[in-house]
């Protein structure tokens, strides 16, 4: 497999990203290994090459990692910062550590696996359309507003680390109107968004969860899928696809035309002219 190693130390983000793009687009390189990342933004941003792998071996990549990405796989052997997978269209991201705030904002498809904790506002406004179902699996715990405005996709929080923080922060799933969140917990999180209801998992949920967790464990080898799957999960789904349907009034002061107000008869041609 052809690969290239880039030492990112002292490289400006534009130079680094230019090198990555040149390598995969012009030279057809399939595996880009980055050493000593120092907060360079937009790594993998906008890349469309499906079978490319970008591996951040050491250091910390900057914000908006894999933003608008449409195919490649990104692996970070360490922590990542904010905005991972922002508006990502496809591909996979594995973070062998923690990640920051606003992960996978507006994500459209693809998968993100994070071994450690994530910050605030993760999974905001993830979407889905037919078989484009984005998913995020958080091995650790999540901050406040997890799944805010979620319009589709799958969010999983496993809480595998043993600190005493709650598994998800406050206002989880506020404004959620699509998709599903699975949380591995015995305790129902507090301050849940009022737009969701809690359910037990059914068979199809279990199947979805199983495949995601197996993929998670394949990458993060210290965890065993069977062990995780034995635990109790709860499922959050929105009550309505239209959470604010009733908040706004028709406003301009006349009754809505009702179908049967008068049956709106069409005048028939015979009547009209004969």
């Amino acid at each position: 497999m052809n690969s290239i190693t880039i030492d990112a130390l002292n490289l400006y983000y534009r130079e680094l990203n230019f090198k990555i793009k040149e390598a995969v687009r012009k030279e057809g390189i399939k595996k880009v290994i980055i050493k000593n990342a120092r907060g360079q933004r937009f790594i993998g941003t906008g890349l469309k090459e499906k079978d490319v792998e970008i591996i951040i071996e050491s250091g910390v990549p900057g914000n908006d990692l894999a933003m608008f990405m449409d195919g490649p796989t990104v692996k970070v052997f360490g922590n990542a910062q904010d905005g991972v997978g922002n508006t990502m269209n496809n591909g996979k991201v594995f973070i062998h550590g923690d990640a920051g705030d606003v992960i996978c904002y507006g994500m459209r498809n693809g998968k993100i696996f994070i071994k450690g904790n994530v910050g605030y506002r993760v999974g905001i406004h993830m979407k889905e359309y037919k078989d484009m179902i984005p998913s995020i699996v958080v091995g650790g715990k999540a901050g406040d507003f997890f799944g805010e405005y979620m319009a589709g996709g799958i969010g999983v929080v496993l809480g595998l680390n043993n600190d005493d923080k709650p598994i998800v922060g406050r206002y989880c799933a506020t404004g959620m109107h699509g998709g599903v969140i699975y949380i591995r917990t015995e305790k129902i999180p507090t301050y849940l968004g009022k737009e969701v209801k809690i359910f037990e998992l059914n068979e199809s949920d279990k199947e979805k969860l199983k495949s995601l967790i197996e993929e998670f464990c394949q990458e993060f080898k210290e965890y065993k899928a069977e062990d995780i799957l034995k635990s109790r999960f709860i499922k959050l789904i929105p009550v309505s696809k239209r959470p604010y349907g009733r908040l706004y009034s028709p406003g301009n002061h006349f009754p809505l035309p009702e179908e049967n107000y008068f049956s709106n008869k069409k005048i028939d041609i015979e009547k009209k002219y004969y």
Partner: protein
Amino acid sequence: MKFTFSLKPENFIIERDDERCIRCGACVQQCAYNAHYYLEEKDKVLGINHNCVGDGRCVAICPTNAIRIKQAENPYRPNYNWTKERMMDLYEQAENGTVLLVGMGAPTPHPVYWDKIVLNASQVTNPSIDPLREPMEVKTFLGSKPDKIEVVFDKNHKPEIKTRITPQLELEVPIMFAAMSFGAISLNACKSLAKAASEMGTFWNTGEGGLHKDLYKYGKNTIVQVASGRFGVHVDYLKAGAAVEIKIGQGAKPGIGGHLPGEKVNHEISVTRAMPEGSDAISPAPHHDIYSIEDLRQLIYSIKEATDYEKPVFVKISAVHNVAAIASGIVRAGADAVVIDGIRGGTGAAPKIIRDNVGIPIELAIAVVDERLRKEGIRNHASLIAAGGFRNSADVIKAIALGADAVYIGTAALMTLGCHVCGMCYKGICNWGIATQRDDLTKRLNPEIGAERAKNLLKGWKHEIQEMLGAMGINSIGSLRGNRLNLRAVDIHEPYLSILGIKPAGA
């Protein structure tokens, strides 16, 4: 028939001249609000005043001009404070306890400064120019310009530019179609505007609804928008357009997110936006990856990175109190153009209370932003695009003289397609096939006709702008941009004079 007790009286009265009505039934068939009804037994067509929204479809379609729509007078005791509208709003809320929703731009009587600004013309000391026979240039370039460039001469004394300038949008006429999403307006409306823009050498804007597959062919003349809902945003979309616009705010609803009700989300919209049919399309109020100006820079550069630095990136904000400082920050954050949308800017749906009360008039915003950017020496680094209720070419040319590079027209553009500004866009049953997704209504707007009419408007305005420039003795619009000496104020007082940076007429 259902009788609901309501304190709200009718808004319009449908008057039908029975002597002219030939019972053809066009009005009955065409009104999606069911305001006309054919009473078979008596062979009469009746109006149902309560249902009428005053959009004029029946008036236009009636082959014998038998229909008049009149505004219903205030049936209540006259009161300066408690006008009919205020009372009706109040009754509405008393009945439903909801937020009042409206469409289109604010009809409130905030002063329109355009009407109080007059233009200059040449007399004697310098000649006016005849645009019909002499060159009269309105070509405009949008994008970041360097402060200076480097020129070298080759062996043959031929000059050559050494400085590479960043990508620019080339406009044959400094008027573009404002962002209106597929969702808020119909695909046929989008097609009309896209076609008109591409034929006139200007640009249309996708709004935040993504780019329908039929519209990719207009990509060269398309500005694609990235808003907080990120609908339909992916790399191909970003690359399909000529420029990318980040929408932070909208003049009609500063600080408010978007909300496309689920009933408007049909198959085509769900494909374009990649979301399930019938689901609400909610755009959060902020971009959740922008909580500060540094974050805006990050988003601007992530888009530049994703498009390989080939597309200019615009940032659109609504005109608010601190607009000059915000615009300055946006320019410093690396935007190639700043778009400002004034308080009279339109919308498909917004809470009435926000639309009518939040934001500042665009005239003042253009003036302060242009002045601030010049003071800071960064005016060249970004273009300034103004939006929000431009009604005719005089408004446009005054905006340019105040300091804008180009303007966006939204409502005016929709009016070329038939819009009568009835303000019912949020209802989704627009009789003119514009702000609706219902198949039987959208087919009423044939994009062939729509494109022609939108194009005609641009043509007419372009020519009028040329006439006005010629009258001023200027033959390139660049020489008018920011040239406030060509403006005078009538009946504007301090401190607005100094904010606008223009002299009173006679001075």
